[in-house]
């Protein structure tokens, strides 16, 4: 167990280093100058040079990278050139609304996706199966920003059920949930579609296995066979995909936040990219990457509780 955790931490470090390195060089590869952005088009050459020197942008890129890494391992991700606040604090401040959206979206995806996939598998070839799979195809094919706009037009504009804005400054849990519902649904349904398809194929495979035939021959009720004996087997590949789709839905969350004018990591990072706020972008990417890697590590540990064959390694 200790070895397993140590290995996970090691993998986490390697993954984060790789991601942050790519983000670092990508930001510097795209054209644009943060000093120019801050001081404006009419800044003097001297002022620009002075600011660049203060920000460390006059050093060769590989030296900037070295300095960045050295500070990063000490927990210092630099300060935002736009606001002057520590970049990490700025990013962490915009995590809660994004986390709420992502968690609610994933919850919706699992709550809808898994049962729909099971029902489709049990009634393979029936109208229910075809319906669920068509819906799932739609959910995968339509981009979230389009679904988001359609959802606003339908549920906010026409039916008036949910607010068009995905966030509110008013306090109160239920108020916040009411605003969160529509964006979470839009984000969740695309993932739900994917999970439903995967659950269906995993269930079909498991239901054809020998041990299910044995359970049937022993008179175990079909309901127990499907929802207990087969489901636990089918959940193993589904869990693996939840880890992957989480990263994918973080990307979608940025789009959903934009459609619903919701604050969060998406808008913060988008603004930072446009302003060439290198430090803020790096901190943002690091936090997103850490979230994805940590979730996948947690899922790895969860597999072992579901699949006993993984435990002894």
């Amino acid at each position, binding site marked *: 167990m200790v070895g397993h955790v140590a290995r996970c931490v090691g993998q986490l470090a390697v993954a984060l280093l790789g991601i942050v390195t790519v983000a670092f060089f990508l930001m510097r590869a795209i054209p644009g100058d943060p000093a120019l952005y801050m001081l404006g088009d009419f800044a003097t050459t001297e002022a620009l040079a002075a600011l660049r020197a203060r920000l460390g942008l006059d050093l060769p890129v590989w030296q900037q990278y070295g300095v960045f890494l050295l500070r990063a391992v000490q927990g210092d991700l630099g300060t935002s050139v736009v606001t002057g606040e520590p970049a990490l604090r700025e990013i962490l401040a915009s995590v809660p609304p994004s986390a709420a959206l992502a968690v609610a979206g994933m919850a919706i995806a699992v709550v809808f996706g898994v049962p729909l996939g099971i029902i489709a598998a049990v009634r393979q070839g029936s109208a229910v199966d075809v319906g669920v799979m068509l819906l799932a195809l739609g959910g995968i094919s339509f981009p979230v920003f389009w679904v988001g706009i359609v959802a606003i037009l339908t549920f906010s504009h026409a039916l008036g059920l949910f607010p068009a804005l995905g966030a509110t400054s008013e306090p109160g849990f239920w108020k916040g949930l009411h605003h969160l519902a529509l964006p979470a649904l839009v984000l969740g349904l695309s993932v739900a579609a994917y999970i439903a398809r995967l659950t269906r194929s995993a269930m079909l495979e498991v239901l054809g*296995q*020998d*041990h*299910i*035939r*044995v*359970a*049937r*021959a*022993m*008179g*175990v*009720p*079909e309901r*127990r066979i499907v929802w*207990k*004996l087969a489901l*636990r*087997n089918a959940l*193993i590949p589904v869990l693996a995909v939840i880890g992957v789709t989480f990263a994918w839905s973080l990307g979608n969350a940025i789009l959903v936040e934009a459609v619903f004018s919701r604050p969060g990591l998406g808008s913060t990072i988008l603004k930072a990219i446009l302003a060439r706020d290198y430090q803020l972008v790096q901190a943002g990417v690091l936090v997103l990457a850490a979230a994805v890697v940590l979730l996948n590590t947690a899922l790895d540990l969860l597999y072992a509780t*579901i*699949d*006993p*064959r993984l435990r002894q390694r």
Partner: protein
Amino acid sequence: MSAAFELRGLTAAVPGEKAAIRLVEDVSLHVHAGETLAVVGESGSGKTVTFTSALGLLPKPGRVIAGQALLEGVDLLTLGPEALRRMRGARIGMVFQDPLTGLNPVFRVGAQIAEVLRAHLPLSRQAARDRAVELLARVQIPDPARRVDDYPHQFSGGMRQRVLTAMAIALGPRVLIADEPTTALDVTVQAQVLDLLGDLRDADGMAMVLITHDLGVVARQADRVAVMYAGRVVETGTVAEVFAAPRHPYTIALFRSIPDIEAPPGTQLAPIAGSPPEPARRPAGCAFAPRCFAASEAAGCHATRPPLTGTGHAAACHRQGALEIAA
């Protein structure tokens, strides 16, 4: 005495392009309490299909189109799904061929046995677990109180077949169907599992059906034998009768294809040439005629299907009278 389990004219089919394709045809068998009936035949002869059909477990789109499956006088084929489910596992148990894939990999073996018990009895979790430990002890798994919490991958093949046997006998069924229970096991373990099944049969007075293609197993374990070929029973009788004087050319050929340890070195085995016909391509006459050493036009082997004739020891062959002299 009426049979514990009896099939009468069982016919199962899958839909075909023109007509239904019959997988097994007009199969009639019976087995009494305390007795073992061996069902022998090549792969694809319909041994397994016969019994999965009788239990309502034939995968779709296969279905039974004629016949009866009488379990202590009750025709299983007339029961609704829920009534049939209550019979399966409780009154008639089944042990399958491959113990390595027969247990659910993500549940403890005790939980799997408990699942079977609780499917039929209103037992508490603890009571079901206690019963599971007793059952593991009954199938001679060492240290059952500890092993009950192990997962299938922690058991060897032979031990897994014991666990599956424990599940099959958990509710004291009157009939136990063992479908090639030792085919997937090491030779050294085969005898142990067969002995266990025999002991359980004797202790509980169960009727046992042993599906196998191993004539050695038949000689050792069974009281009576039914030989199947291309979906039909071609010969049936007591083991003594059939082994002493096989009447069907297929049975005779089966005996000839067994290696004999006392044969002089260099003796060639006599395999049966060709392979059994697929269900959709069975010939009009006797299905074995194309491979038969005794088939003749005069006897009508290629034209009409021979009925199973004889009381007690019976065979389905146009030439059985002539063969007894020849063999």
